[in-house]
């Protein structure tokens, strides 16, 4: 074995040398004499070897099939001897130094002399008879060919009997054998949307037409296009029906979350229904890092396995779907092709909230009855000052006038704009080379992303950087053995300002001074503590991820139809964080007090996740007449260990250079470790009859270390069937219109092991008591162990899926529809009934809850062309789902503060707004001059605990008790609370399309949500929302005695009084969360072919792309659906990114 391998290696080396050195047989001097009859060729060669002193290199099986030879030689040269010996044998030889290399001679046509070439010509038309310009015609087996002209004509000299291959992008290839015909006209048909394309499924591939599960495949280059987007998740937003991408912030590098088909599980710890993420699989192996580590440019396709029928094969982590990422690779016999693209972007926020004007702000103070503001400003005097001074900016450079030691800010400012209003520069570069010989393919790529955020870009704290280095190498060692090595290194740096004071940017009133330094109340000038300055002079938290991922794979094909694949992956994800919350002394612009901000805490965190996976699986594929069978069986095991530590200290000596060793505060540190492992045995059988009747069954026997011994393994079967009706004879009449129709159904169950490791072990953790015995260090304490059920096991996720795939008009219009129902059963939740508090700890987790999700998804794609120059495509997808709790044993009283049976995801409980109290609701004479202190007339309802005033909100008193209240907060006694809305996004859609005319193309991406209600109370949606609130232009319609027909109720000084009663969750303040966002517009110009050829390039595009150009929604200005509140309602908005770039291949 070893020797053989060595020989193969030597042979390879010798072949390479032969090619390089071009050494011929001249100058051989040694003479050879042999006489043999009917001798094995091998023996003869050994004799020549001995006499000549030359070494022979050949593959041993090369000679084994040849008959014996007769040789008579006397004093022959080596070349003469070889010529005689190898006469008539299909072998060639070459000599390199003292080595003779023997190889099989490539097969050549039998004809000794080729017949004269034939002159062939014709036209290439599409199915409507329109000529196709630029269609390519190639002689099969060669690289010779030509392209058609404007009228679709071509001419070519070809050998008689040759085969021509006609191809055109977007059309199926056609082959024609010449058979001495001088004119060959060809009609090309639009490609059947890749029904013969190969789709990646778990541990194998399948023809798209034969797929019976719910599988969506996206070509990454199609969704990436020229967009200035660096992360896969953002590109996948609203692209595939049912794949929900949450991008909660526009901040560069913001983490995203993915989910397939809505709610998945119950989060027991905080009583929320969670939408868990799918398993991410890259080239067949689970990927542990965030998906966004991968450069989209390195991805060939993303395949979403929606249903259990297709996902179950990946076992214990695939319960909520699988996203299969297939990376780009080289192709055989391809000359090296380099490609480079870049994207230079200017990003800025365009949708920011607008503060009320100074007059409106001062008026609101008066309306609330505020006479004295934070630092003692007399509101009446302030108003007078503001009204009397023209051009205060010139008069008060710091924005503040001081009267009697009290600062009166007089210049209109906008802290939100100061924080978020700047432009940032971003760029991306990608360089790759791909190619291959007849045995080897390769691809190497380098990508770099550098994105600055808008939080004071000059401070360089808000940024995201990523470097990607990847290589994929595949070599056919023999005709039946291929080895592959994939090496990837991902490195990203995410920096965010540590003292990110979104909340104060929102709450400072429009007059708060914005100058860099202002005077404190004690007269001393100091740094103005604006949110922007907190960033500029603060320091960042820096998180670095480095992921090294190595995969080695061997593929054996010992006989026709059988492959055996063994693969091993080692993945090392390293996360390091340095967080420094630098302490600054600032003057707070709200009250002119000198104050510290920031804690001064410096933290170092380090975490390493080592993941190893080993897969061995075999595929066997065979046809018996019309019966086609593919069988797959395999074994998989994975082990994941996470270990890390953190340490922190205050008292940094040099704030410009924080470190743990040089800090002086108490040292704190801790470590963590957790590991899980999985082992699974799986198999799948695909059967089809004539490609018409399709059946797939699969099963997986899975074990997880997360479960107690004896409950570790589970068996999870799945199956699916399909019927390609369009292949039936009775459908042929419909064929011209209905080109493809398939109905399918699948059902499967998958285990979910996604619970914390060691849940079955009653563990004791280290704690940090607040009790101290000294002033320099914490003590260590120990927690008490909880009660553990030793019998819990896998949650089971069952998915039923019905689907239809269809194609119309030669598949120009294709579509897919899926309806599904997913039941998450046996969710680990507190025991069958909660136990009395006497127990002293939570009831142990048992498999006692269930959740159901139901929904559908539609995808339609249309592509066509008008004439030869205009091509267009349009894709539309829509999905919807609802989810509700179907079992929860742990809530016998149906309390609304935890899960209850029938609870729908997103339900909003609240009161129904009725009207405002008027003076008529009060016993006459009881109201004072401020319209407070009145006594309600009998029968007028009031909120429990409220003594209402005119202008306060009256809620519907459903119970008729005269008191509006929440009852016992149970389903049966919810008082006057009702389900008033639902925040689950419904009718989620995406539209993408493009049109091209000759070299110019235009594309767009639209995303949206059709229906959603949001309850988003904050400073930005409610006037004077809290004690530190202020007013925005969208909040001025509040109740005052002279304006009672208002939207908002009465507002109170410092948001005290009855304001909390007016701010209950209620029908009036629900926001309509439906929206339509134009996510991208791109214009691309490809340089014409002749210019490209002159420049010796393969392709050269220039483009301009705008990300997030338009948003149509119903929220107040500055708020967008789906973004996370970063403080007092303010969001880090999606940025409008305008980019330019080039894309060239050479």
């Amino acid at each position, binding site marked *: 074995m070893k020797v053989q391998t060595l020989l193969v290696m030597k042979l390879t080396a010798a072949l390479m040398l032969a090619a390089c050195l071009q050494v011929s047989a001249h100058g051989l001097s040694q003479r050879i004499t042999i006489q043999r009859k009917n001798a094995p060729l091998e023996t003869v060669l050994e004799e020549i070897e001995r006499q000549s002193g030359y070494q022979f290199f050949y593959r041993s099986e090369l000679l084994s099939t040849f008959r014996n030879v007769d040789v008579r030689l006397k004093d022959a040269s080596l070349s003469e001897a070889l010529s005689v010996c190898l006469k008539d044998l299909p072998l060639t030889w070459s000599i390199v130094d003292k080595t003779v290399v023997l190889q099989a001679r490539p097969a050549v046509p039998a004809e000794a002399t080729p017949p004269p070439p034939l002159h062939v010509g014709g036209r290439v038309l599409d199915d409507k008879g329109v000529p196709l310009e630029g269609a390519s015609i190639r002689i099969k087996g060669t690289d010779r060919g030509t392209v058609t002209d404007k009228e679709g004509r071509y001419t070519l000299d070809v050998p008689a009997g040759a085969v021509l291959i006609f191809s055109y992008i977007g059309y199926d290839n056609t082959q024609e054998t010449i058979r001495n015909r001088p004119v060959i006209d060809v009609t090309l048909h639009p490609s059947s949307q890749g029904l013969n394309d190969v789709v990646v499924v778990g541990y194998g591939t399948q023809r798209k037409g034969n797929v019976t599960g719910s599988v969506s495949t996206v070509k990454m280059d199609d969704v990436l296009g020229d967009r200035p987007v660096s992360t896969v998740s953002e590109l996948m937003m609203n692209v595939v029906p049912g794949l929900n991408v949450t991008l909660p912030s526009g901040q560069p590098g913001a983490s995203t979350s993915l989910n397939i088909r809505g709610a998945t599980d119950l989060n027991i710890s905080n009583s929320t229904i969670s939408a868990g993420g799918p398993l991410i699989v890259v080239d067949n192996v689970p990927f542990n890092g965030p998906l966004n580590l991968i450069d989209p440019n390195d991805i060939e396709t993303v395949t979403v396995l929606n249903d259990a029928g297709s996902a179950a094969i990946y076992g214990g982590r695939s319960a909520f779907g699988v996203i299969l990422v297939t990376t780009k690779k080289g192709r055989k016999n391809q000359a090296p092709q380099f490609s480079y693209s870049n994207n230079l972007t200017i990003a800025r926020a365009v949708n920011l909230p607008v503060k009320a004007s100074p007059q409106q702000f001062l008026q609101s103070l008066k309306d609330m009855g505020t006479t004295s503001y934070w630092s003692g400003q007399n509101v009446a005097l302030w108003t007078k000052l503001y009204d009397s001074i023209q051009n205060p900016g010139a008069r008060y450079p710091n924005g503040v006038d001081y009267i009697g030691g009290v600062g009166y800010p007089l210049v209109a400012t906008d802290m939100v704009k100061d924080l978020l209003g700047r432009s940032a520069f971003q760029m991306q570069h990608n360089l790759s080379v791909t190619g291959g010989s007849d045995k080897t393919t390769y691809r190497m790529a380098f990508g770099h992303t550098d994105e600055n955020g808008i939080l004071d870009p000059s401070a360089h704290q808000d940024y995201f950087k990523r470097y990607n280095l990847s290589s994929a190498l595949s070599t056919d060692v*023999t005709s039946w053995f291929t080895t592959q090595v994939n090496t990837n290194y991902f490195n990203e740096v995410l920096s965010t300002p540590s003292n990110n004071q979104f909340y104060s940017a929102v709450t400072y009133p429009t007059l708060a001074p914005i100058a860099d330094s202002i005077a404190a109340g004690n007269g001393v000038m100091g740094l103005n503590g604006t949110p922007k300055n907190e960033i500029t002079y603060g320091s960042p938290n820096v998180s670095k991820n480095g992921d090294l991922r190595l995969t080695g794979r061997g593929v054996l094909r010992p006989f026709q139809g059988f492959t*055996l694949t063994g693969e091993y992956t080692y993945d090392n994800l390293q996360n390091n964080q340095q967080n420094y919350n630098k302490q600054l002394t600032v003057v707070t612009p709200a009250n002119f007090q000198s104050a510290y901000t920031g804690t001064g805490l410096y933290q170092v965190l380090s975490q390493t996740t080592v993941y190893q996976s080993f897969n061995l699986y075999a595929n066997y594929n065979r046809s018996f007449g019309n019966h086609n069978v593919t069988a797959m069986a395999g074994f998989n095991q994975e082990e994941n260990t996470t270990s890390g530590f953190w340490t922190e200290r205050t008292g940094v000596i040099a704030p410009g250079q924080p470190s743990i060793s040089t800090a002086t505060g108490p040292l704190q540190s801790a470590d963590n470790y957790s590991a899980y492992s999985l082992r699974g045995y799986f198999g799948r059988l695909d059967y089809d009859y004539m490609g018409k009747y399709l059946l797939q069954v699969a099963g997986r026997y899975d074990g997880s270390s997360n479960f107690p011994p004896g409950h*570790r393994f589970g068996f999870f079967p799945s199956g699916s069937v399909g019927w390609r009706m369009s292949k039936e004879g009775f459908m042929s009449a419909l064929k011209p219109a209905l080109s493809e129709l398939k109905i399918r159904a699948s059902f499967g169950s998958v285990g979910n092991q996604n619970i914390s490791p060691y849940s079955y072990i009653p563990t004791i953790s280290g*704690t940090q008591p607040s*009790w101290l015995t000294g002033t*320099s260090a914490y003590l260590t304490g120990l927690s008490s162990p909880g009660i553990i059920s030793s019998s819990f096991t896998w949650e089971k996720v069952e998915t039923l899926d019905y689907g239809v795939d269809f194609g119309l008009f030669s598949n120009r219009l294709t579509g897919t529809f899926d309806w599904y129902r997913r039941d998450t059963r046996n969710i680990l939740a507190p*025991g069958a009934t909660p136990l009395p*508090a006497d127990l*002293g700890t939570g009831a142990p987790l048992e498999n006692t809850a269930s959740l159901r999700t139901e929904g559908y998804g539609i995808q339609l794609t249309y592509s066509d062309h008008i004439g030869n120059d205009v091509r267009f495509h349009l894709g539309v997808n829509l999905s919807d789902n609802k989810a509700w709790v179907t079992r929860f044993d742990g809530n016998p009283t149906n309390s609304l503060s935890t899960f209850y049976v029938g609870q729908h995801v997103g339900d909003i409980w609240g009161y129904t707004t009725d009207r405002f109290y008027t003076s008529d609701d009060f016993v006459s004479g009881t109201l004072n001059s401020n319209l407070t202190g009145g006594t309600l007339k009998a029968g007028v309802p009031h909120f429990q605990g409220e003594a209402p005033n005119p202008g306060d909100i009256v809620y519907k008193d459903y119970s008729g008790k005269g008191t509006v209240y929440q009852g016992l907060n149970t389903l049966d006694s919810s008082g006057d609370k009702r389900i008033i809305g639902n925040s689950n996004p419904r009718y989620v859609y995406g539209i993408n399309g493009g049109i091209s005319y000759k070299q110019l193309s235009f594309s767009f991406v639209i995303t949206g949500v059709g229906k959603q209600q949001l309850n988003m109370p904050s400073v930005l949606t409610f006037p004077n929302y809290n004690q530190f609130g202020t007013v925005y232009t969208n909040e001025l319609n509040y109740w005052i005695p002279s304006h009672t027909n208002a939207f908002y109720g009465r507002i109170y000084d410092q948001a005290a009084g009855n304001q909390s009663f007016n701010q209950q969750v209620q029908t009036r303040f629900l926001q309509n969360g439906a929206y339509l966002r134009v996510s991208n517009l791109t214009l691309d110009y490809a340089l014409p072919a002749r210019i490209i050829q002159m420049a010796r390039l393969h392709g050269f595009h220039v483009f301009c792309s705008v990300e997030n150009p338009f948003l149509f929604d119903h929220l107040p200005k500055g708020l967008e659906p789906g973004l996370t509140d970063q403080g007092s309602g303010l969001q880090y908005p999606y940025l409008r990114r305008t980019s330019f770039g080039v894309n060239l291949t050479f």
Partner: protein
Amino acid sequence: MKKYTYITLLSGLLLGACQKDLLNQQPKTQLTVANALVTYTNFQTYAWGLYDYFTGYGGNGFYPANLLSQECNSDNMAETLIGYQSAYINDTKIIPTTGGATSELVISGWDFSYIRQVNVMLDAINDAQLAAADQAHWRSVGYFFRALRYYDLIAAFGDVPWIAHTLNEDSTAQLFGPRTSRDTVAQNVLSDLEWADANIGTGTPDGANTVNQACIDALISRFGLFEGTYRKYHNLPNADMYLQACATYSQKVMTQYQTCMSSYDLVYNSLTLAGQPGIILYKLYAPNLTDHEFGPRLMGSTSENLDMTKDAVASYLCADGRPVSTSAVYAGDSTMFTEFRNRDRRLYFTVIPPYTVTVGSPNYTWSYTANPADAEYIHMMDTLSTPSNKPLPMVQWSQNENTGTVISEVPHFYLYNNGQPQAISQLGYFYWKQFNRYPLDASSYSTTACPLLRIEEVWLNYAEAMAEEGSFTQAVADQTINKLRPRAGLPAMTVASIDAGFDTNRDPDVDPVLWEIRRERRVELMGDGFRFNDLKRWAKGAYLNKPQLGVHVSNASYGNKLSIYGGGPSGYVQFFPAPVGWQPQYYLEPIPSQELTLNKTLKQNPGW
């Protein structure tokens, strides 16, 4: 042939990859009872977590500290924010569905997690590698903490389940059984503590300021008085036994601790109480480790209002040792200035005295006003306080206490704040017992130590127990109350001089001497969280029915913005409406409704 060799090789790889115990993952940074509770040091480590039952002055971001929020459920104080009136005062106390608080001196919730935490330790003692004496020591420490928790549980609910060992889901008899009677639980607590007193390691085996014999005895003193008087005034048996235990163990502590700290202010405003006379146990804080918001930070806040009541202020004696009703030196309450003249010094350390100054520019400077009377208490505090404690005028909180804005005037009303919205009060009696000017740590929090067990309380427990037993004599007074009088600037109590006419404002149902003992307790422990339980055990919940009034003012001086009790141009400031009234069922807390659903044998407390 070779291809089969390759296949064999791959199969070999597969076998190599098959570790037998792959699915057996064990934690590395967590322990189990088997390896966490073995040695003496292990038990010491585990026990540090039990000390967290003492919340002291609170932790980061939690305010007001538990002891003050308890005081607001009494006639001592009010948290004067809308919606914050005590539920026992405005009749909004409702039956909760689950849970509730679990920390020292707080109205307890129906929560037994702390009991479980202690029981895990107690149950592990027998299997641990401990000498017999060490076993006894850790059992004693465990008993102390369990008793500490049961004291709060009994105070809240009366009957509670007695849980002696760790329960699990199969302990159905206990989980679904009825409550244990108060008689049994209280008896168990007392005998556990008595056993611990006899068996705990001598001296301070776990270092200074840890649970030792004196702590156990001080707890018996506290619990004995509570249970004894509760039984006496609620007509339950065996009151004597608990009062006797209180007396016996109080005396034991009193032998060991014979003096108290010379400054009342420093008891509450010292960075450490290590080695201070009379301090038995205290909670230590340290910069950037554990700190609290008590002290300057929130006392200078714009949104935390804690006011003393008129009734509480009036309970302080005058400098002649007589109450305001009969004192010759009492100057009347027509203004806050007259009201504060010639009073128990503890009043000045608890409520900020009145003054007016002129704030300068920069605003941390100030000057006297033209009227010398405005500075009366500024001069007085200069003699009573150090510059780092409570000099006047008060400065509002800032990072550097020397550059904080000077509060121009006290009383400093929320509704009339002179443009200074910090350190405001609704009633005028601004509580400032924990105020000082020590530097704050980097988180801008305070690190002054909180006394937990001290001899002053034991003296008061002893005095009251003796009075309830009819054994209070001048000798007992001299051993107890008269040790507190010097630092308050008051003459000694003369028992013989206290008759029915000593305080004409006395609750006529209370014996005159007992009334004075209770007064001394109220004043000395003002703000320390005892008053609510005191009122409950005396069956004096009706004291909460008194309106919570503030300073006597002329409303014209404050822009007529204040609410005057009973209306009119001048009078006592009022914030909350008149109390709805104490309900008899309040003496015992309601059991959460979910518990009654889960355990059908559990019965609700009467009246709920």
